[in-house]
């Protein structure tokens, strides 16, 4: 999905604001964090679906709201889309139906967090590329979730590492199906991503080009020779 969450290489955001250090500036952010993790443990959706839900926020609202507002938007959307609560319940804050799902209890939390959700999978096929291969990221623009940011699409690089096969998020986010895809670290030279001297010198990022590289994790379906 090409939306405003895909921020790599975007301009106009100004300097980095390092002023805010508290994880949860106010209590509602803390609650959104806790509710999101607790509801995730109900097992009704996966992390890629969570990301996709947040990306589907209105593009302007995404940029104009804080991080935990993205989470809140995603949580509310998933709860309703997955039928865990009804839209009416969400609106009123009053339960109208009982749920067959059971909350995770506090005693189980440390174990669940400790196990995490590994994405590495066995895969029948051998990886199609080897470290050192020059490959290109395909140009594709799905309206669904992808982990190929726009700034690498169509760009060439070198396979820098192979990480094994992992759950393919583009599929996982849409259907919930866990299909393995070979995962690589791909190295891009800076000028390949952002252009060299360019057509207009003023304020071009390209002046940074020397001795810079960007490494991006890419799934095999994203790339071609």
């Amino acid at each position, binding site marked *: 999905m090409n939306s405003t969450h895909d*921020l*790599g290489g*975007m301009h106009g*955001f100004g300097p*980095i*604001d*390092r002023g805010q*250090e508290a994880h*949860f*500036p*106010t209590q*509602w952010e*803390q*609650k959104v*964090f806790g*509710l999101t993790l*607790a*509801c995730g*443990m109900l097992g009704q959706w996966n992390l890629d679906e969570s990301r996709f839900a947040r990306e589907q926020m209105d593009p302007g609202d995404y940029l104009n709201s804080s*991080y935990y507002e993205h989470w*809140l938007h995603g949580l*509310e959307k998933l709860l309703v889309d997955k039928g865990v*609560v009804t839209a009416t*319940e*969400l609106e009123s*804050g*009053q*339960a109208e139906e*009982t*749920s067959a799902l059971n*909350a*995770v*209890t506090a005693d*189980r*939390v440390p174990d669940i*967090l400790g196990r*995490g959700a*590994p*994405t*590495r999978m066995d895969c029948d096929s051998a990886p199609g590329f080897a470290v050192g291969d020059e490959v290109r990221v395909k140009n594709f623009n799905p309206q669904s979730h992808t*982990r*190929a*940011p726009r*700034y690498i699409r169509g760009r060439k690089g070198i396979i820098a*590492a192979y*990480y094994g096969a*992992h*759950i393919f998020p583009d599929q996982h986010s849409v259907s919930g199906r866990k299909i393995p895809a070979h*995962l690589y*670290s791909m190295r891009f030279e800076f000028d390949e991503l*952002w252009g060299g001297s360019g057509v207009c010198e003023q304020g071009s*990022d390209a002046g*940074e080009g020397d*001795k*810079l*590289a*960007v*490494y991006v*994790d*890419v799934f095999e379906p994203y790339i071609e020779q």
Partner: protein
Amino acid sequence: MTQEKLPHHSHGLSEIEQRVKNLENLLVEKGLVNPQAMDELVDTYEHRVGPQNGARVVARAWVDPEYRQRLLSSATDAIMEMGYKGRQGEHMQAVENTDEVHNMVVCTLCSCYPWPVLGLPPTWYKASSYRARAVSEPRAVLAEFGVELDPQKEVRVWDSTSEIRYLVLPQRPENTENLSEEQLADLVNRDSMIGVALADSPEINQKERK
């Protein structure tokens, strides 16, 4: 009528506070969220898990060459040796700063971050400006963080687009030969493990560190 339609809006809460409160009430009432479990989740990441974990990993790698080697080749296992594992750290990769290379980490698409070793990300890491600029003008970003590198040093930016989570292994500061592993860990600030800072010098006023 107005009171009936807005049953919860009379406590001086902002719109978003009310929205979250309604949601929490609903989820607890439906038995979908256990309040104690919520407290446990928040407490874990607000107070127990944080960059002190990563700092211990880094300090050990500085003093123990075999551990450093394990960390660079099998980061997930090496970090688990120290007792850190789980959510958002299932698949770890360490990237080592050297005299030739400086590494920094970003997640341009959301805010992926290695929770078990660094805790939750700082606000700037999640904000648009860092996510937009880290990959396209990393030297300018580093300069804003006060890091001026030799132009001959290669900067590598790692965009966390998969479930691999990156930990920067900063360079060990000079004049630290006589420090203990624990004292060394005190020099490993959070930002140095994201790659937007260097590890502290032993001379630095400890209060200045984050």
